[in-house]
């Protein structure tokens, strides 16, 4: 494995502090890993511009790289192109649903608990900027949905 591949593996394995079943890799946050004149540069993209998790993930990526032998790695932030939930991996979407959060799939929403299609939105905002509050009319359970962005 090359140095950049190894660094990417380390960065992508960092979990999201708010939704720990997802990794930075699942979320599609690691936009670029390259060597720039012997210096390793990892470029991350934030999800929402005010999401407090973005800073935590950045620090965790720096720590993961340092402990993996990349003490000189530089972690940069890139805003463009803007992050979209379309970059979330299929594995990430499956893990989210198993965790009880409806994944950001464009089209009809289904209940992550019972799979029912009779669901309704309670609020367009939830416990984090990336989620909305929903409930299932079948099993009567409330659930969160990761918004499509």
């Amino acid at each position, binding site marked *: 494995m090359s140095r950049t591949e190894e660094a990417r593996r380390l960065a992508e394995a960092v979990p999201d502090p708010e939704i720990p079943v997802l990794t930075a890799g699942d979320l599609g946050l690691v936009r670029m890993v390259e060597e720039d004149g012997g210096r390793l540069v990892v470029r991350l993209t*934030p999800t*929402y*511009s*005010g*999401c*407090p998790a973005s800073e935590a993930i950045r620090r965790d990526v720096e720590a993961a790289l340092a402990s993996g032998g990349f003490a000189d790695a530089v972690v940069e932030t*890139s*805003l*463009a*192109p*803007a*992050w979209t939930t379309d970059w979330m991996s299929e594995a990430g979407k499956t893990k989210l649903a198993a965790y009880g959060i409806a994944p950001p799939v464009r089209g009809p929403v289904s209940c992550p608990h019972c799979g029912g299609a009779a669901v309704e939105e*309670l*609020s*367009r*905002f*939830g*416990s984090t*900027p990336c989620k909305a*509050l929903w409930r299932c009319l079948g099993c009567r359970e409330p659930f969160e949905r990761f*918004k499509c*962005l």
Partner: protein
Amino acid sequence: MADALTAAYALRLGDDALILSHRLSEWVGHGPELEEDIALANTALDLLGQARLLLACAGEREGRGRDEDALAYGRDVLDFSNLLLVEQPNGDFAQTMMRQFLFDAYAVALWPRLSASRDEVLAGIAGKAAKEAAYHVEQSAAWVVRMGDGTEESHDRAQAGLDLLWPYAGEIFEADEVEAALAEKGIAVAPSALREHWQARVGPVLEEAGLAPPEGAGVRTGGRQGRHSEHLGHLLAEFQFMQRAYPGARW
């Protein structure tokens, strides 16, 4: 490289987001219901994120070593360049949502256009903000309709909010030499170019809500040049207290 014009422009947009974010954060724990409390906090958080990016950009372009915190906590009222609209008090929930709607309608007109800016940093920030603003305006427009077309009391409160805030909306489209020079270079969006898009968003929502802008209302301006209403000083007194009392404090 120092670029005073772009610094001033980024600061204006950043101050809008920062001050409105603080106003919305004043609702935390006081929202009319839990879901709205959370919605207001989420919107405040998005705006704070936008403000941080814009103030950081302004500080870099200014080239005087001021970072986002120095600009947020270390300036006095006269140095803030936000629109007068965003510093107006929360009032009741109807007034807050009306202020939010009038601002969001501006934001969804501005950000997609600014995302084509020749300034890559501003374009990147705008591209992110555009997605967030699209979400915010759906929420605030829905509340304006719900209250305007609701009970007699909710209608009257929404109309009172509109009467109070409408004169401040005109400032959105005012430009001075900062916007004019940067729009010429393809860096800024000329505020006058946004009026048509703003009206196309605001008009149908107010109509559906059964609300009408006050007739013969003037336009209040001055925020961009640092001439603020009495409210901003009180806001900053709370917002900046900790850094004023204990400069450089961290936790």
